[in-house]
């Protein structure tokens, strides 16, 4: 459960979040969309406590996250760019993250799913971008946490891995988790998301399911409906 009230964040002169109000109480997949620079990543990082807000309240499971770090045990996070210590092997990295979180993970199942066995003893600096992303996914999804945040999860994945990732996300959803996803690939969003949170200029511009978005914008096609949201504002 995530509650956000009047969240403001400024980087120097650049006001990125201008009063976000967002309540995520029910389970399901929420797609956070918006044009470049609309504050998607800042919002996600604020939830994770990586960005310190200037103003506003942010509660995870009804507990304020200010000066709190233990709540992050409830969250699995997949960062946008995967860059790991170059001198560690994949296996060591997985063991390390499990050790840091002090929890057993379902890494075996995920390693099999993404066919990572041949890479386990390789150093991370020798992996290709797509393989790194797979390792990234294993690292973030191996813990069974009630909240999952995925920042551009599809980057660099081959078609097979993409299909497996989608199945995996659906499985996690079936377990009754809250899943937040950002993506620029609209077909992926349309297939996966239960609800859309559309950010524009630091505010929540639209929140609702895909059908509601289509009726509001009078577009039959999801991609066009999103484009419509953008042009409406400009007009």
């Amino acid at each position, binding site marked *: 459960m995530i509650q956000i009230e009047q969240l403001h964040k400024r980087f120097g002169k650049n006001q990125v979040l201008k009063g976000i109000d967002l309540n995520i109480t029910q389970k399901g997949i929420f797609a956070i969309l918006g044009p470049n620079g609309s504050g998607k990543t800042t919002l996600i990082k604020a939830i994770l406590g990586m960005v310190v807000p200037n103003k506003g309240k942010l509660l995870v499971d009804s507990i304020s996250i200010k000066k709190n*770090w*233990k709540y*992050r*045990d409830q969250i699995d996070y997949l*960062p946008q*760019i*995967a860059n790991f210590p170059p001198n*560690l092997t994949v296996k060591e990295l997985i063991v390390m993250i499990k050790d*840091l979180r002090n929890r057993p993970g379902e890494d075996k199942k995920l390693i099999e799913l993404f066919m990572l066995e041949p890479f386990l003893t390789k150093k991370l600096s020798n992996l290709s971008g797509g393989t790194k992303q797979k390792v990234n996914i294993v690292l973030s999804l191996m813990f069974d946490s009630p909240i999952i945040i995925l920042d551009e999860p599809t980057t660099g994945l081959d078609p097979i891995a993409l299909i497996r990732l989608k199945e995996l996300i659906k499985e996690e959803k079936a377990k009754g988790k809250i899943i937040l996803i950002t993506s620029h690939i609209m077909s992926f969003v349309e297939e996966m998301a239960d609800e859309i949170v559309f950010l524009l200029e630091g505010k929540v511009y639209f929140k609702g399911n895909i059908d509601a978005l289509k009726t509001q914008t009078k577009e039959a096609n999801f991609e066009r409906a999103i484009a419509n949201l953008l042009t409406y504002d400009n007009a």
Partner: protein
Amino acid sequence: MLKILKYSFYDLIRSRWSYVYLLFYLLLGSVLLFLNNDLSKAVITLMNVIIILVPLIGTIFGVMYYYNSKEFTELLLAQPIKRSSIFIGQYLGVALSLTMSLILGLGIPFVLYGLFQSNEIWDFILLLVTGTFLTLIFTALAFNIALYNENKIKGFSYAILVWLFMAVIYDGLFLMSLIAFQSYPLDAFSIGATLVNPIDLSRILILLKLDISALLGYTGAVFQKFFGTNFGLFISIGTLSLWVLLPVLNIYRKCRKKDF
């Protein structure tokens, strides 16, 4: 924090650069002993190298490690770990692996040469202690600089500038002020100015320990009177510890407020 320290340390002692650094000291130590055939002289030559090189390597490694592991740090920040543990752990990982290279690299040739049978063992230990302090100090300064500067190039330049100032420019200014005010009594001033700069302080400490302060003339006598006593040594070690403590505290303070 210990877990982060452990993993940073493991990561670093496997990197090629740690080996290059270790090999360099091994080579330097062996060559100096071979050429000088005298422990005491080797220690003096080593001091001159260490006092310049250790701060330089500390700053560069510190800044480089911080910027290189930025994305990984972000991954750690999303884990249920306290922020200060992440940064202090990484700092200690870098500083301790550098210290280990220094101690092993110099220690092995000196021990093989017969350090334990000689009278110079305390001089050598003081050399290693100041080397360790300088590593801790300059790595901490580097982490501070990196924390305040998002821009890699800027961070690197500031780090190099800090090193250049401490190692070279400070001495020049010090010398010039001594010449400018030579008609005044400068004992207290020169002792104070030496205390403030960790590089100068380390150099004086080792010089005095080697009993060659007579070469420094009157200044040497003044320094001997202050730093040569137990009180002076205590103050010096205290100042060096303060130089470690203050930047580390600032890392602790700054990292809790920073956005990533």
